[in-house]
């Protein structure tokens, strides 16, 4: 083999090796960037929740407490106050929607229980006579009775207690 040819072969082999290394480096950098983006997204989500917690939570908590007090007060005479209680329960729906943005996944246990009860307000009737026949046939209705009001109140007060505790821990974190 001529010396010029052997030099060209060596240069080509060197270039192949370098390109292999650069490809591997590129792949690692791409992977690290992907991890970074995922972590940043998580961090941004966390910051958003913190922001909601500081700015919206006090208002949400005040609304929940007011609803709790009204529901329990109206429940002293459920028969007479059925329509007012149903209105109070339906008012909770948008509050919970707003509240969800401030809560972390691990804080959602009682939120979900309450939310499931509140969702029923869309097919809750004041008396069985108001339930249309096809709903009666398939059993897809809920009655506003003592049991339903007690369940809503129970989950509502437990959720408020949870938020008060989260709030205290949050103040503790800020203190550090």
């Amino acid at each position, binding site marked *: 083999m001529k010396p010029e040819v052997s030099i060209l072969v060596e240069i080509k082999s060197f270039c192949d090796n370098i390109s292999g290394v650069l490809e591997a480096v590129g792949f690692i950098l791409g992977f690290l960037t992907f991890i970074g983006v995922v972590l940043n997204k998580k961090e941004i989500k966390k910051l958003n929740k913190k922001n909601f917690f500081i700015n919206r939570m006090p208002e949400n908590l005040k609304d929940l407490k007011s609803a709790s007090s009204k529901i*329990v007060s109206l*429940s002293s005479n459920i028969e007479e106050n059925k329509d007012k209680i149903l209105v109070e329960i339906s008012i909770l729906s948008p509050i919970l929607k707003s509240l969800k943005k401030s809560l972390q996944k691990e804080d959602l246990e009682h939120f979900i229980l309450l939310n499931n009860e509140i969702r029923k307000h869309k097919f809750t009737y004041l008396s069985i006579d108001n339930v249309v026949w096809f709903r009666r046939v398939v059993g897809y209705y809920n009655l506003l009775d003592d049991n339903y009001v007690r369940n809503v*109140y*129970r989950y509502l007060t437990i959720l408020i*207690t949870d938020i008060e505790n989260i709030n205290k821990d949050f103040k503790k974190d800020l203190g550090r």
Partner: protein
Amino acid sequence: MINNTDFVFKLIRETKNDILTWEIVKHALELPHDEKLTSKIYTLEIKDKKFRLYEYQYKHYVDVDEWLWNQRKRLELIDGDNERLYEFEYDYSFNDLFDIVTKKTSGIDDFLHDFLSN
């Protein structure tokens, strides 16, 4: 499953409907050193059982030497000597109970009724 809230829910309803009557008492109450009584003491008797309700202030530590004053209501089962036998685990419903008990024992409803009807 029966829990505290169901019990408190019934207490609230029956207090509001004047089925249960709470009393303001003045017995001595010993609280831990970092707690302060911030209300009157209310008691209630149901079927030979005596319950006590009050509001207190406590230190909520945010750091080793830094705290915030927080307020809570406490509901207890007590004996004839006013000693605590059992403390109900706190939940927010105690606040609703406290509000209705203070309103009922203050007599404000009767006053407003008389005042506004004259």
